[in-house]
């Protein structure tokens, strides 16, 4: 039986996997110790659990557990990586920083903060498919470039940036390379033995772990140094003070263990559902897929429906829980800056829906969604004067609108 609204917003956050929750609960009750307590068994058990989780998180990335720093989430990881590295290396390397216009706000806002402090930033404009090119990246580098930050997977359109190639260039030029991988873990293979990535931000709650926990991978070989952003008791090699939230750490470890073991088969099933959804709505006229379909994680489908109004589209589709842009900015009425950067018009950006499919999505849910979209779109367009004009062959871009 279907449960409404149908959850198709897995890139906003995922439910905690029941196996993860089961592993967390004992660390709220009987094993509640503070991992920093060195004088008794409660503390030792908490520390042991946190270290086991560190191994599990590292294993998904083929990284060394010693390179993993716990944080409160990917937003904090991004802040620590970007501000921490830029400040540490500004004196020796320079004050030019590079990122992409379609990054998450948790990268763009720290960049703006650095700009206010006298750093100079370059924001690369992606191509129409959402991807940046190697040549474009190489051309942006300067002798004083200290840091580049490029996300692995875009949160709105799911496209995969060429991290491996960008890493090679950064290593060659001595530029610190940070990757926001919040949307990538469990969705694509990541091998930090091969990738020349210096800093990588991770989140638990996009990969069936709890909210409130994330990590920053900080490479030690070659050694990357950071200025801490939260100071105190000196936890996490002095890079991030504050009592470790053991139960959340245990949850992230278990979530990443499950991801490592199951991602290959799970992603094939999710790809099949995504393709079915795309096939099912392709026959709806004037729909556009946003972002490259090949260089993309299987979970994401972002579609603009032309000639419908954004707000009424959301109202009409409230039986499915989807996002009309990034969750963090959906409160504002601005059209998605990611879709705008791809060259989409305000109208197409406004009338876009991001479907993100996950572990608990079923074939029935996808079938229902296809049916719902067909019904609602034909109804909305019946009422739309724009649709009527389009059908009459009026070129809407030439219409002079009267001011109210």
């Amino acid at each position: 039986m279907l449960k409404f609204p149908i959850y198709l917003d897995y890139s906003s956050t995922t439910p905690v996997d029941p196996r993860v929750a089961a592993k967390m609960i004992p660390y709220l009750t009987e094993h509640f110790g503070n991992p920093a307590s060195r004088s008794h068994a409660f503390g030792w058990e908490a520390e042991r659990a946190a270290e086991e989780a560190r191994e599990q998180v590292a294993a998904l990335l083929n990284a060394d557990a010693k390179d993993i720093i716990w944080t409160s989430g990917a937003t904090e990881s991004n802040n620590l990586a970007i501000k921490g590295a830029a400040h540490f290396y500004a004196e020796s390397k320079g004050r030019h920083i590079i990122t992409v216009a379609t990054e998450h706000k948790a990268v763009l806002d720290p960049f703006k903060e650095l700009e206010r402090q006298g750093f100079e930033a370059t924001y690369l404009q992606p191509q129409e498919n959402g991807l940046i090119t190697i040549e474009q990246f190489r051309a942006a580098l300067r002798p004083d470039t200290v840091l580049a930050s490029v996300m692995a997977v875009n949160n709105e359109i799911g496209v995969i940036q060429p991290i491996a190639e960008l890493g090679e260039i950064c290593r060659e030029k001595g530029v610190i390379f940070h990757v926001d991988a919040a949307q990538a873990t469990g969705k694509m293979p990541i091998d930090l033995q091969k990738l020349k990535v210096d800093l990588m931000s991770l989140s638990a709650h996009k990969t069936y772990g709890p909210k409130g926990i994330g990590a920053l991978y900080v490479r030690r070989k070659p050694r990357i140094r950071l200025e801490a952003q939260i100071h105190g008791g000196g936890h996490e090699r002095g890079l991030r003070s504050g009592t470790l939230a053991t139960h959340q750490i245990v949850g992230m470890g278990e979530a990443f263990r499950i991801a490592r073991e199951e991602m290959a088969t799970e992603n094939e099933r999710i790809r099949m559902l995504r393709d079915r959804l795309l096939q099912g709505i392709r026959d709806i006229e004037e729909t556009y897929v946003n972002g490259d379909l090949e260089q993309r994680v299987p979970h994401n489908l972002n579609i603009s429906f032309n000639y419908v109004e954004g707000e009424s589209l959301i109202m009409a589709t409230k039986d499915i829980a989807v996002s009309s842009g990034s969750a963090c900015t959906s409160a504002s009425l601005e059209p998605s800056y990611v879709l705008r950067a791809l060259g989409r018009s305000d109208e197409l950006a406004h009338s876009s829906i991001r479907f993100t499919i996950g572990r608990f999505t079923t074939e029935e849910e996808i079938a229902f969604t296809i049916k719902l979209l067909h019904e609602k779109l034909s109804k909305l367009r019946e009422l739309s004067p724009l649709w009527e004009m389009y059908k009459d062959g009026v070129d809407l871009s030439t219409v002079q609108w009267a001011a109210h």
Partner: protein
Amino acid sequence: MSLPTYMDHNATTPVAPVVLEAMLPFLSRQCGNPSSNHEYGRAAKRALDEARQQVAAAVGAHPTEVIFTSGGTEANNLVLKGAAQAMKPGILALSAMEHPSVRSPAEQLLRQGWQLRSVAIDDQGRVDDDDFLSALTENPRLISVMRVNNETGTMQNVAALAARAKVGGSRAWFHSDCVQALGKVAIDFRDLNRQGVHALTLSAHKIHGPKGAGAVVADKRLELMPQIAGGGQERDLRSGTENMAAIVGFGAACTAAMADLEAGSLHLARMRAELEEGLVELGARIFSRGAERVANTVYFAIPDIDGETLVGKLDRVGYAVSSGTTCSSANHEPSATLLAMGVSPELAKSAVRVSLGRDNTLTQIHGLLENLAALRDQLLNLTAISS
């Protein structure tokens, strides 16, 4: 083997059953992100608002004055660095016994042109009145004094200190770390605010809530620069997807702690009285005994017995206590707070902290005292032999 008796509640506490129950839905079907514009998101937003009201109610604040963080350390960083970065550098006055999560961000401000003024404490661990007044004459821009010390349990009358600053014409912003005070003493932010306190910091896991949630409670006139940017959550003062389960747990823990405040304190005070009586008989020196303290904390030293050693032995016979602050448990430096109180380094190295919780019993206190007596004799004999 059964678990040892836990008497280290100032380090962290077990999550109360009622708190766990409140949290569980957010670790299963209640999966929404409060920023999402659909029913899952709206349900999360409602739960977030309710938790904010619960936390605000526990400290007599308005819900809009509560900013959720990942814990007490982040909260202290946000207040001190956030406030300092929003004004011209000047003097930050802080007591000599502040927690590392206050002291360390304060030290970071030195690089931005700030000066630190350490305010002396007396032999009972109270802020020294004369030195506080003297510090005020230096016109600090920021003052930070904790409400309850994590080691000694000494209470500071921050309302009186703030009032004195205000009456003296000080224009400093006054912050108080209330992490160890919440759930142990009544906190009324409205009243404190009237007296001149502008911001408090709180933590969930010291009051039988989960680790991973804390808060800043701040007067809105106090301008704060966000320390974690990107997303605009918490009125743009603290970005990042809200830790729903922990925040809901924090709210539930606050409500439970308030309901339990009086009865809990009586129970704790009774246990502490017996413990201290027994300790004195064993020849222990109890720190800050002459000061007003929270009911759960006993900080003592048995002369000539190393604190670390005693704590290790106690663990082996089934009692989990601490030799000082948890964060610095790894190093064997004597407690900075005790040294600031004028305690000799030798005696400070003997310090042991017992911090009780509401689940401890008088029977456990008696058991602890019996074991302490035996261990004392054993360890003193060893000392005698080796010397």
